[in-house]
């Protein structure tokens, strides 16, 4: 297989990952690393670097649209980025010292978690009662546009959410993924903000979180242009197509299908990790 053929296949794979990721809301990054390591036999360090790049691309591309709609809570995002960037740097340092088999197993576990969580019903947002001292001081309480006009919401449990975000950032820096699933737990279930706000704000933070660890990856030589080029362009193209199709396709069955794919990939990653073949 020549570089030309390799790049073309990789591009198509990344296109599919980006399309499915955006249609199901699970993100394309979760299937990229198994695709690169299991199918193309790429070393996991290169795979992590490549995935991180694609995560920044899709996050920035999607955030551009959401921010303009006024759903994203930018203040909350900025505040929580303190936690995620610090975590991401810790995670990126760790990536150099952990054996690749451990990284693969950890990756598999996070994959299972992400797939499962995508079916969980988000907790009800808090819209009445006491807004909370810390969230008021930090001016995190906000409102977002709905078909019935602006809707107010309160941000609860700021400290708990901040701590969870720190872990999400660390996982992101260690595994080269956006860890959107963990970010959404922190915001939906701990801070109790509306689902639409948490997903867009999580997406908004992913780019900055990934940018924090990318410098470390670059210096270590994890980021290879030959791999990143087809993957970045493919994932971006797929995500763009997905955002165009989103209004017209039924996503429920697609989501189940994608979750099954993720589950199989996760098992394969864990299996290879346990056998030290990755």
């Amino acid at each position, binding site marked *: *297989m*020549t570089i030309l053929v390799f790049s073309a296949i990789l591009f198509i794979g990344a296109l599919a990952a980006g399309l499915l990721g955006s249609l199901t809301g699970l993100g394309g990054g979760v299937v990229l690393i198994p695709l690169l390591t299991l199918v193309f036999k790429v*070393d996991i360090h290169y795979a992590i670097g490549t995935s991180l790049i694609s995560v920044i691309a899709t996050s*920035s591309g999607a955030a*551009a649209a959401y921010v303009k709609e006024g759903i994203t809570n*930018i203040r909350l995002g900025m505040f929580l980025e303190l936690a995620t960037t610090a975590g991401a740097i810790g995670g990126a340092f760790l990536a150099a010292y952990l054996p690749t088999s451990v990284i693969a197993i950890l990756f598999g576990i996070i994959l299972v978690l992400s797939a499962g969580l995508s079916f969980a019903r988000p907790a009800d947002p808090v819209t009445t009662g006491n807004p909370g001292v810390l969230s008021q001081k930090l001016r995190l309480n906000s409102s977002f546009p709905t078909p019935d006009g602006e809707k107010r919401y309160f941000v609860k449990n700021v400290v708990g959410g901040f701590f969870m975000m720190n872990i999400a950032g660390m996982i992101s820096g260690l595994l080269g993924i956006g860890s959107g699933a963990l970010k959404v737990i922190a915001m939906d279930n701990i801070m109790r903000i509306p689902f639409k706000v948490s997903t867009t704000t999580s997406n908004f933070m992913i780019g900055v979180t990934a940018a924090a660890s990318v410098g470390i990856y670059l210096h270590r030589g994890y980021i290879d242009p030959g791999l990143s080029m087809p993957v*970045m362009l493919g994932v971006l193209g797929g995500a763009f197509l997905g955002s165009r199709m989103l209004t017209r396709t039924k996503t429920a069955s697609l989501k189940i299908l994608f979750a099954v794919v993720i589950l199989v990939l996760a098992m394969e990653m864990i299996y290879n990790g346990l056998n030290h073949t990755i």
Partner: protein
Amino acid sequence: MAIHKKFRDTDLERVIGELLRYGVLTSSLVVLAGGITYLIRHGGQLPQYHEFRGEPDKMKKPILMWQAVRRGEGRPLIQLGLLILVATPIARVAFSFVGYLLEKDYLYAVLTVIVLLVILLNF
């Protein structure tokens, strides 16, 4: 006062949205140009990613990247495009800092500077 504040916040949102859009677009075009050059020069060779070897300095340091780009190499041009991509969310943080200063929201201006420092010091 409240209305004035809201106006400033949405203004910042608009600028950030545009910045992200153009950043991604620019970097994609640079990566595409580098990719075409790379495939023309090396498309017939065999890929070797099975073993981790790291990258040479010209794929890590912007100045060396630029020098290699001027020699007509494709891979460093892709890498340069990736740097533009990474710079986009970082520039977004820098813009937010200016925005919060204009809003006289000093608490958030300080938080933003800390995030910016955490990122830049590790680059």
